[in-house]
Each structure stands twice: as structure tokens, then as C-alpha cells.
């Protein structure tokens, strides 16, 4: 089966592109980015602020399983309903600098749509570091699960 979400990250570049096709009409896909309550649901975050307009800003706060709070924020540069959102994204209290995100929404048919997310990082090394985070988490989780299975067998 073809993968629904695709990542294009060329070696040595400081950006990447995420694409995803949805079995949703364009308006419903866009609504998932526009409505603070819905954003909170699928992102699993508290939405403290979401000003959907040029010069607007946004602020999220997530709580991890240990109870630690993590803040995220950014500024909205472009907001064109059912077309595009251009914004910055910053993880507070981390060494990662702000990143720039271009989100483009398009209709594929009456019942399907596509999101193209272009993310630009400060440097190629930083982009790779962002990619390495889920990788490092991934090998930990995969091995821990494996360990659990092995422990049960012994």
C-alpha cells in the first residue's frame, strides 16, 4: 500500500516537505487547522491562542505523561482560508531555533484534499537534528517493546 504521508528531505538541505492526501473535502481539512477546539483534539495540545490572520499569533501548551508542560508559539504571516497558512513555529525552552512553515491546502475532488507542508530550518544540521529526535525515540520504543516481549518469553 502506498504511504499516505510522505516526507521529502534532500541531503544537505535545510528544509523538508511533508505531503498528505486526506479523504476529506478541502473545507473540512482546512477547518481542522482553523478551529481551536479541533486543533486541540488532533494535536493533543491545549490551544492558548490562535489568531487566524496576518500579524496574528498562536500559542499551544502540551503536558507530557510525566506532567511537564511544554510551550510552543509562533506568528501567522499569511492566512487565506482553504488555500494557505504561512507561520513560524518555535519550541520554547529548547535549543531549537524558530522554523518557518508554509502550509498549502488544495482540493483533489469533492471528497478529497491535499496538504503540502514546507518547513524551513535555520541550518541543514538543525533539520537533521529535528529528524533525529523521533528516530532516537523510535529505536528506544521499538527496543523497549521488544524487551517486554523477550521478558515474557523467558
Amino acid at each position, binding site marked *: 500500500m502506498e*504511504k*499516505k*504521508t*510522505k*516526507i521529502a*528531505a534532500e*541531503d544537505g538541505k535545510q528544509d523538508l516537505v*511533508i505531503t*498528505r492526501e*486526506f*479523504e*476529506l473535502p478541502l473545507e*473540512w*481539512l482546512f*477547518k*481542522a487547522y482553523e478551529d481551536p477546539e*479541533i486543533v486541540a*483534539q*488532533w*494535536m*493533543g495540545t491545549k490551544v492558548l491562542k490562535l489568531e487566524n490572520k496576518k500579524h496574528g499569533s498562536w500559542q499551544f501548551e502540551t503536558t507530557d505523561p510525566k506532567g511537564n508542560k511544554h510551550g510552543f508559539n509562533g506568528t501567522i504571516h499569511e492566512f487565506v482560508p482553504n488555500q494557505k497558512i504561512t507561520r513560524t513555529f518555535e519550541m520554547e525552552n*529548547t*535549543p*531549537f531555533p524558530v522554523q518557518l512553515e508554509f502550509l498549502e491546502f488544495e482540493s483533489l475532488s469533492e471528497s478529497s484534499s491535499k*496538504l503540502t507542508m514546507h518547513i524551513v530550518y535555520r541550518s541543514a*544540521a538543525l533539520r*537533521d*537534528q*529535528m*529528524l*533525529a*529526535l*523521533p*528516530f*532516537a*525515540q*523510535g*529505536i*528506544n520504543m521499538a*527496543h*523497549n517493546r521488544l*524487551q517486554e516481549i523477550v521478558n515474557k518469553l523467558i
Partner: protein
Amino acid sequence: MNLRRDVFQAIADPTRRAILLLVASQAMTAGAIAANFDTARPTVSKHLQILTECELLKQEQNGREIYYHLNAKKMKAVADFLEPFRELWDDRFNKLEAIMKAKMQEEQKKK
């Protein structure tokens, strides 16, 4: 020497995987890394040595301190480096899709 095998052996150890996860978010000194574990400092040093030898970690001199950071280039060579990042976004988008489909159905019922 089989470098590929060495890398897999390196990540087969839970402490070494935990070290990789720690330095994934920021470069750290051996002391700062060791502070996260109950294991004796020389044991952590040994793990750092193994991870550095198989190039999963890189050392960088900063003044008098040596910082360890993740060598993303090496990771890209050994595994599908992008896959966990892709899965993270895929899960998120699947959730979005499921929530919106449910909302669409609710709306249709009202009509």
C-alpha cells in the same frame, strides 16, 4: 570491520539508546550525560566510547569541555532515518482525518 553490525550492536543496549535520546535534543558533556544514570561514571564513559567509535556520536571540543552530539549523517546510513518522523506525522494526520470524518457524519445526521 563490519560497521553496520557495530552500529546495531551499539543500539542493542538500553543505556546506549537512552544516551542517544538524551543528546538528540542537545549536545551534552560526559558529566551531564552521566548525571542522568544511576550507573557508575566509568560505565557511562565506556558507553560513550562505543557510541563514538561507531560514529553514532560525535565529539566536539568547546573550551575545556568535550560535548557529545548525535551524528545524524551516520544514522541516515544505517536505518530508515526518516521513517519515525514520517510515522509521527502520519499518526497525527490519521487522527485529524478520523476526527473530521466523525464531525462530517454528525453534521449529516442533523440535516
